[in-house]
Each structure stands twice: as structure tokens, then as C-alpha cells.
């Protein structure tokens, strides 16, 4: 399992291609479920020109690793990959990637969605949006389930 928190832009499909080459037992994998969250150019009715993603270094990595470990304990998974951006982002930049490899699709779907919801509700990240008229902190998350 791999957790990456990075201030560098990342290309999710290239990250997935490279990571999959590293899987020890690719022919045990029948299913891979992936989620990619990216920055939209609008939110709550306003045009958004950019974003700063702040986080709590140390606690972030610790909690992402715990979320992934909990998923591996609950489902039968071959591998899990989580990548999360920090720093300055522009519209359509990838923010988060969650990928789960498993023998069967049910496990892959359920674990991927669970890791994503857990991450949103627990991992210490905060978004500050740059609007036409100034900046604002995002106050709450949209419900995902």
C-alpha cells in the first residue's frame, strides 16, 4: 500500500500505469476501482480561479495510512494507492487519487468509495479558494453518500 502527499502536480493515469507495473501479483487482480477528484472552476455559484490546499504535515500521512490499513483489514485487497495534492492548484488540476486492486469487483468498488469518504471526513486538508472578488475558505464538504 502506498500513500503520497505531494505539493507537485500529478498525472493520475500515468501514476496508475507506473504503479500497476509494481504490483507483485497482477494476475491475482480481477478488479481495479479508481477515483480521481479534480479542481472545478466553480463552487457554490461562484467562478473559482485557483485554490490553495493546506494540510497538517505528519498527521495527514498518518491518517491516510490508517484509513488504508483499515480498508485492507475490512476487505480482501491486493493493493491500495492514495495520492493527495497540497499547495497551489488551478482548475482541472487533480486533487486526489484513490485506487484499489482486488480479486473481485465488489471489494474494489466498496473499498475505493469507503477510503474516499473516510479521507474527506478525517484527513486534515483545508481548501482556500481564489475568487474574482478575493479568497475564501471552503467551510464544509459536500455529502458523498
Amino acid at each position: 500500500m502506498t500513500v503520497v502527499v505531494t505539493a507537485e502536480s500529478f498525472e493520475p493515469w500515468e501514476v496508475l500505469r507506473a504503479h500497476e507495473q509494481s504490483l507483485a501479483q497482477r494476475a491475482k487482480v480481477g478488479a481495479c476501482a479508481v477515483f480521481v477528484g479534480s479542481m472545478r472552476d466553480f463552487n457554490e455559484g461562484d467562478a473559482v480561479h485557483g485554490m490553495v490546499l493546506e494540510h497538517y504535515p505528519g498527521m495527514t500521512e498518518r491518517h491516510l495510512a490508517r484509513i488504508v490499513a483499515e480498508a485492507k483489514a475490512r476487505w480482501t485487497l491486493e493493493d491500495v494507492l492514495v495520492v493527495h495534492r497540497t499547495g497551489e492548484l488551478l482548475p482541472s488540476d487533480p486533487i486526489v487519487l484513490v485506487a484499489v486492486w482486488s480479486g473481485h469487483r465488489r471489494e474494489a468498488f466498496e473499498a475505493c468509495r469507503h477510503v474516499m469518504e473516510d479521507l474527506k471526513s478525517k484527513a486534515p486538508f483545508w481548501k482556500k479558494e481564489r475568487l474574482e472578488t478575493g479568497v475564501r475558505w471552503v467551510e464544509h464538504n459536500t455529502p458523498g453518500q
Partner: protein
Amino acid sequence: MAITVKFFASLREQVGMDTASRPCRGGMTPADLWRDVVADRPLPGNVLVAVNMDYAAPDQPLKDGDEVAFFPPVTGGAA
């Protein structure tokens, strides 16, 4: 030794500091620590507390050397 305090995001901007340090008193809790550091306003009800990078209750007893963080609801991930 002492207790390290960290503030993040909008809370960091509101209290006007990102890090502080305070001596540890016996039986001290994060709520006590907030009063020591942020004299002019009470601990907001929606503020989250972490002790040594784990979520904690505001009344959890602290010990010397702990790192305490206060921050607003988290908003990572995607839309």
C-alpha cells in the same frame, strides 16, 4: 519541556498565529490550553482538536511534550 500548539487554515488566520508553546500544568486539557493561548475568544464548538496527530476531545488530559492542534472542519478530497 512544554506543550506545542498549532493552528491551521481559517483558524490560524483568525487567531493570528500558527504555532505557540506553553508550559504544561498538571491536569491541563486542550480547552485549558486554548484559554491560555487565545485569551480573547472561547473555543468554537466546531473546532477539531488533535493531540499528537490523533483526534482528541477538548477535555482529554495532556502531558508534557504533547503537540496539540486546533483546526476547522476538514475539506480535502473532491467535490
